[in-house]
């Protein structure tokens, strides 16, 4: 299998780059941790209507949403790395070799999944003393869901970066995309608190399903229909966005 070998080669290189400058992985966690410390306490009264009103319950609702925000938000910004690589000439160097074009995308996207997995682990570990509790089986499902979200957001970001080579414009486009996706998925505040029309709009946002699925898993309700529904929806979206981005890669990286 030439493609899987090529994916492995690209993945290894980007893993090496991550190990060489691990600071980025930890900087990525800094923002969620600040939110955890300063924002989650505000939620306690707001969420008391949804659960028993304890701090642990607040975290059980807040942490899964934040993990989705991390996967979505973090992933959408990976395109900047690609821009830097495009201008440094390393992509061009790869283009003149027979390496699979799809591998250039997948190897990077998988590295992004690993980055996210580490960041998610840090956040989950930090929230255990705060009363978060999750079964190992549910956690594995949650990780699968996060991986699908990460693949989707990375694929979108790389695809946009290939189309928009100006870093300033790219930042604006990504911001304008990330904001509605985040707000309409209830990552920070559950959409259960939202008016009906907003909830109906959010039903069209796959990431909103992902957040619901994650919350169910962290509440220990793995059997909820929303769990398998969210995994199926995110898997479909991940395949679609990867296919779109891979097509851009093969075309512009011919």
């Amino acid at each position, binding site marked *: 299998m*030439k493609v899987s070998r*090529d994916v492995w*080669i690209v993945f290894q*290189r980007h893993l*090496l*780059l991550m190990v*060489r*400058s691990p600071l980025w992985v930890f900087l990525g966690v800094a923002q969620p941790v600040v939110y955890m410390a300063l924002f989650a306490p505000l939620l306690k009264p707001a969420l008391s209507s949804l659960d028993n009103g304890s701090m642990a319950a607040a975290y059980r609702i807040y942490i899964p949403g934040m993990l989705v925000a991390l996967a979505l938000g973090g992933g959408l910004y990976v395109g900047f790395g690609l821009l830097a690589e495009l201008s*440094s*000439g*390393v*992509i*061009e*160097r*790869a*283009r*003149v*070799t*027979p*390496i699979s074009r799809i591998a250039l995308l997948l190897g990077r996207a998988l590295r992004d999944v690993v980055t996210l997995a580490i960041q998610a682990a840090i956040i989950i570990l930090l929230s255990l003393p705060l009363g978060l509790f999750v079964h190992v089986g549910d956690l594995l499902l949650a990780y699968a869901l996060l991986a699908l979200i990460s693949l989707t957001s990375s694929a979108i970001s790389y695809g946009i970066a290939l189309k928009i080579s100006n870093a300033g414009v790219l930042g604006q486009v990504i911001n304008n995309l990330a904001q509605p996706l985040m707000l309409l998925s209830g990552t920070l505040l559950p959409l259960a608190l939202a008016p009906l029309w907003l909830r109906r709009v959010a039903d069209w946002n796959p990431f909103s399903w992902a957040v619901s699925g994650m919350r169910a898993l962290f509440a220990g309700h793995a059997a909820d229909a929303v769990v398998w529904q969210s995994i199926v929806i995110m898997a479909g979206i991940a395949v679609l966005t990867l296919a779109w981005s891979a097509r851009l890669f093969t075309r512009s990286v*011919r």
Partner: protein
Amino acid sequence: MIEAKGLRKSFQTRRRRKTAVVEAVAGVDLKVAEGEIFGFLGPNGAGKTTTLRMFATLLSPDDGEARVAGADLRTEPARVRRSIGYVAQGGGTWDDVTARQELVLQARMHGIGKAAAQERAAAALEAFNLTEYGDRNCKTYSGGQRRRVDIALGVIHQPKVLFLDEPTSGLDPQSRAHMWDLVRKLRDEGMTVFLTTHYLDEADALCDRIAIIDHGEVVAEDTPDALKRAISGDVVTVGLTGTAQKAAELLTGQPYLRSVEARDDDELRLTVEAGQTAIPQVMRTLEGAGIELSTIELHRPTLDDVFLTKTGRSLRES
């Protein structure tokens, strides 16, 4: 090894909502033989890099045909890629990995197995005098070292043809001489090297054959010596004080003169059969007409003279 016919490429540029088409390469024909160093000489913006990138499968030509190492550029870019190496002007390495890691990766991207890739990387470090720095991060290298890493990356898979874009641009004289030796060594091992340059001395001293490109077209192609010989005879430059036009008219038609050209008001550039005998005659003619000469200089034609003859401009000025 490389054969191109009517290769064309134009780009669209947008400025103030107007789209303009810039013809970067306007029909390039050339032939590069196996085992030679072929230089593509021209000023910045002449279309050198665009042509090189087309040969390296990075840009698809708008029109024309080309074969590189026996494969058709348009229909079999994958086959072309297997037999070429390409080194961009700015290189292309990650800052935080070592030259050895880069070499292994490059070999593996070319489909070479892990163990063999490691052996090749070690051999390349040796061959390019990099063993000492091979395990240091690329960002710590000097300009010359970095350039050697770039070339080592370009030839790790032993390609038939190596494309080098401005290989010595920005290097100090010593690194430059070292780079020339490296390129010659690769040629002596049987590799065909196609390089672009805007340095006259590089084209002259390093290249077996050159093509001169200007405004996207090849205006001359031959060995540097043959190109210089084609101008034949010598070049005489006469310095005057504002009377160049008049002097040019006066000299036109003299039997010992091949061409005469006034450059600015104070300089006359003559190509003559033999400089030694032409100088006294030029001086007599001009002084007879009351035109005063401030300087007179004789030199063998250089590639710059070739460029001047073919394009009407000096490469040094453009």
